Structures are given as C-alpha cells and as structure tokens.
C-alpha cells in the first residue's frame, strides 16, 4: 500500500485512486489494442488457417473438395519440376536484384550526404521511382523493353549488350533481366533513403576529429562510416531479401512467369496456383515451403550476426 491509499480517509476517494490505478495499468494495452486485434484477425488467423489448408484438398470450383489429404501436397511439391525451376529462379531474381539495389543505393546515399546546391530537388527526383506503384513500374518497363515504342533495345544493341534490338522479355534466356532491371529501378530509393537516414545520424564531430588526426577520406569511410552503417545494412539487407523473394507483382505484370516459365519465381507460382487454378490447398503447401525456407534464412542470418558480434 502506498501513501496515497493510506491517506484516503473516505471510501469515495479511495475508490477514485484504485480506478485511476486500474486505468493507468491498462492504458498501454488500450493504445495498442486496435493494432493487435487487427493483426490477429486479419493476419495471424488466416496464417494458421492457411497452414491447415496445406493438408487439405481445397479447390474453389470443386464442391467435393475439402477432405484431408495428409502430406500429399508436400509430396507433390517435392516432385514438382515447375517448383524446382521457380526455386532456382527465385534465387537469381533475389540475389541479382538485391546486389544492384544495395550498391547503387549506397552510392546514391553517399552522394546525397553532402550539402550542395540543388540537393533537395535532386533528392526528391531520384527517390521518385519508389513512389511509382509496382504494377505501373512493371508495365512501364515492359513498354521500355518493347523495341517498337522504346529506344532502349536500340541502345542496348548499340552498346553491344544485345546482339540484335529485340524484346528481351520474349527471350527465355534473357527475360529474367527485365523484371530484375525494373526491380533495381524501383528499389534503389529504398536503400538510399534508409542509408541516408543512417548516415545523417552519424555525429559530424567524429569526422572533424578524424580529419584533424590526418585520416584520409578512404580511411574515414572504412573506419567511421561503415561501422556506423553496419547495423542498418544488416537489418535492411535481411528484410529486403525476404521482401524481394516474396515480391511477385513485377513478374506477374511484366511476363506472368513466361516465356516458358523462365521468369516464374516461387511467389508468382503460388499466385498462379491460387488465382488461375483456384487450387488453394496446393498453393498453401508451396507457400508453407517458402515460409520455412525464408525463416531458415532469417534465423541463420541472425545466428551468423550474433556469432560475429561475439567474436569482435
């Protein structure tokens, strides 16, 4: 009992204190409650329901479906050549998109982390692709690769990148580069924004002290900038990997997985199974496999990061 309740002489004030205490104890939950309710009902419950679909036969157009099929879907996934192909494509799609997004985004953030005339307008213009809705980026780039209405194939031909000015989206060997380029275009601003924010939070005095001590710009970058950026880099890279691996919009809009499944990634394959074949059971089984793979990735990254931190 605290002084407040001991001092309460008549019951009315005592009650006022307890109800206020009750309120203040539940106040944090009161603020967080709408978010929690929403997340549980719209994301967690469907996630669990989706996991139960993996062992059931759920086809929307088939009224007799709904039965328990055990691990039949997973067995089918294991033998599904299209899934293997999609997994391989997902790997290349993710690694190449991420590589270019990150290095180009980091360079852009470093360029913007200086004061110079015109900086504000340049910053808002180079960040603009992020505001372009993904479906529109996809359509826009699909048009850009069309030799009839865009100069891009001609330019690529002139630079010797293409052997003739054709549409790379219809060439099974090159088609994947279409969505990858669109994804790089779309994703550079994300890395630039987050890394710029991290750069701006580095105290300027550290650089001043270092340059008084005679450290070169390269030395400053390696021993001040990079260590400061490291936590942001680690988190954004991990989140972006997962996000890009799940990101089907560009591919669905630009190639719909074609030609000849050469651009089909796992998440676009899931969407095709659910949307075109309405086979929700099988789609959920593939999604569960993807979920496990991504979680394994995230856990191993966190584990590696921890053991690295322990060493230093």
């Amino acid at each position: 009992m605290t002084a407040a309740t001991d001092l309460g002489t008549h019951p009315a004030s005592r009650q006022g204190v307890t109800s206020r205490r009750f309120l203040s104890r539940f106040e944090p939950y009161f603020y967080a409650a709408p978010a929690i309710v929403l997340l549980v009902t719209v994301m967690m419950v469907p996630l669990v329901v989706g996991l139960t679909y993996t062992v059931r036969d759920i086809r929307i157009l088939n009224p007799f479906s709904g039965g328990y099929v055990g691990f039949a879907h997973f067995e089918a996934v294991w033998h599904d050549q299209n899934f293997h192909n999609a997994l391989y494509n997902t790997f290349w799609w993710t690694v190449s998109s991420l590589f270019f997004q990150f290095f180009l985004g980091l360079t852009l953030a470093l360029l913007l982390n200086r004061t110079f005339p015109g900086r504000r307008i340049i910053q808002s213009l180079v960040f603009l692709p992020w505001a372009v809705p993904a479906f529109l980026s996809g359509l826009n780039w699909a048009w850009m690769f069309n030799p009839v209405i865009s100069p891009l194939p001609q330019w690529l031909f002139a630079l010797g990148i293409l052997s003739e000015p054709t549409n790379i989206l219809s060439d099974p060997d090159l088609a994947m580069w279409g969505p990858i380029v669109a994804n790089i275009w779309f994703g550079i601003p994300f890395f630039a924004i987050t890394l710029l924010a991290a750069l701006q939070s580095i105290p300027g005095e550290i650089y001043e002290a270092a340059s008084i001590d005679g450290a070169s710009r390269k030395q400053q970058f390696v021993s001040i900038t990079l260590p400061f950026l490291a936590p942001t880099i680690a988190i954004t890279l991990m989140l972006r990997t997962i996000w890009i691996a799940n990101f089907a919009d560009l591919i669905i809009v630009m190639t719909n997985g074609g030609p000849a499944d050469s651009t089909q990634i796992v998440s676009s394959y899931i969407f095709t199974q659910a949307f075109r074949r309405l086979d929700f059971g099988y789609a959920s089984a593939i999604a569960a496999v993807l979920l496990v793979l991504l979680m394994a990735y995230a856990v191993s990254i966190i584990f590696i990061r921890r053991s690295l931190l322990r060493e230093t």
Partner: protein
Amino acid sequence: MAYYAKSKGQRVVDWSVHYGLLACYLFFALFPLFWLFKVAVTPTKLLYSEGIRMWPSEMTWTNFTQVMTDTDFPQFFINSAIVSGSTAFISTLIAAAAGYSFSRFHYRGKAVIIVLMLITQMFPLVMLIAPIFRILTPLGLTDSLLGLVVVYTAFNVPFATFLMQSFFDGIPKDLEEAAMIDGNTRFGALVKIIFPLTLPGIAATLGFVFTAAWSELLFALMLVSSPDAVTFPVGLLTFVSKFSVDFGQMMAAGFLALIPAAIFFFLIQRYLVQGLTAGAVKG
C-alpha cells in the same frame, strides 16, 4: 567537411564526378517516366512511325481525354482514392496509438507484440490470399472496397507502427509529464502537446501507407471482380490484356495513376528520412 584542405583543381574534379554521377542516377530514375509521358502525348498515327523519336513531331492530349471519357478509369480512380485514402487514415490512427504505447510504456507482452509485428513483415503475403478469400466471402467483404480497406490496413499497420514509434521516441517524455502535472490526463497531453509535434511523422506515415495501398495489386486482383469495386492497378492490368494495342491510352492512364502517389511522396520524402534518422539514433 573534409574538403577544405584540397587544391582548387582537385575540388573541381571532385564536384564534376559528384554531379556527373548524380546526373546518371537522375537519367535512370526519370527517363522511363519521361517516356511514359512522351508516348501518352503522341498521336496514335505517329506511335509506330515515330516510336523511338525523343519527342513526337506533334503533340496531343486526346489520349488523356479519351481515358477520362470513354473508359471506366475515372471510376477505378475514385475507387482507388477511396481505398487508399481510408487505408492511410485508419492505419495511421491505429499505428500512432500503438507506436505511442511502444514508445512510452513498459508493459507485459510488449516484446511479444513487437516480435509478432516483425514476423508479419517476413512471411509471404501470397500465403494469406487463399484463407483471406475464404474468410471474407461469407462476410460479404469480397468484391467490396471495405474488404480491401480492412486487409490493406492490417498489412500496413506493422511498418507504420514502427515508423510512428521512432517519431514519438524523438519527442522528450518530459513534455507530456509536465502537462500531466498541470492536471491534464495522459490522453489530453497526447492530443494537446504531442500530436502537433508529430505532424511531420504523421504526414510521412500517411504518405507511406497511401502509396502502398495505391499500388497493391495481387489482393485487389483476387478479392474484387465486379467493375464497380475495381481499383486502378487491376483496371490497368485488365486494360492491358484486353486492348494491348492502344499504347497511347494505356500510358495516359498509367501517367494519371502516377500523379497522386508522386505528389504524396514528393511532399513527405524529407520527413521519411528524418523519421528514420530519429529511429537510427535510438537503435
């Protein structure tokens, strides 16, 4: 900072490289958008003959007027505006409350909620398509804008919450404590003192969620089929597959779809960097 010690010649080289690189980025970022606009203002008869000319020999707005008068795009546009606007408003409200509670209180279960929110950022959303479709159908929420608003709000709340939390973290606790000593309730202090200070953060969150909802394609494609609830992305995609020849109109429609998101983003991108900086200082 470190540049004053350099010779003049070196500085000139330095800045030329700097602006040269930025020019490359600007070109890469803006050329596709410029091209979108260029094709949209090219008359149909010149589309192929001047397909790769930098600017058509004559310019026209007919593609835009046709999109506005002869197609369903105005309806799609309104649908998208309703969905994105409501999603942005509701998500920001919910996220501001949750972000405030993360920023100001320590309580049991907080860590669990945060982990839960992080997990929702990691799993493939395509996985939820089937169950959400099955759950929303008996509720009558498929084929309706309301269903989309509910789903989009849930998808955007986690990131928006973290964003809002980092903005609240940047505001000293003493401010509302002082107001509470003066006899305000915590909620009163929040509304009177803290809310005006977080306006940039709220703007950033609103803009972020609006753009995300404006671009969403897969769930809109899956959940909505009747024309009066179709959003812009779905409308544009069906337009493309149905009339794949009319590039001028497609590009005009695409350009119109770009405008609201671009305006929003243009206004908020500074605050977004600021907000993330505030978060980075803490984390």
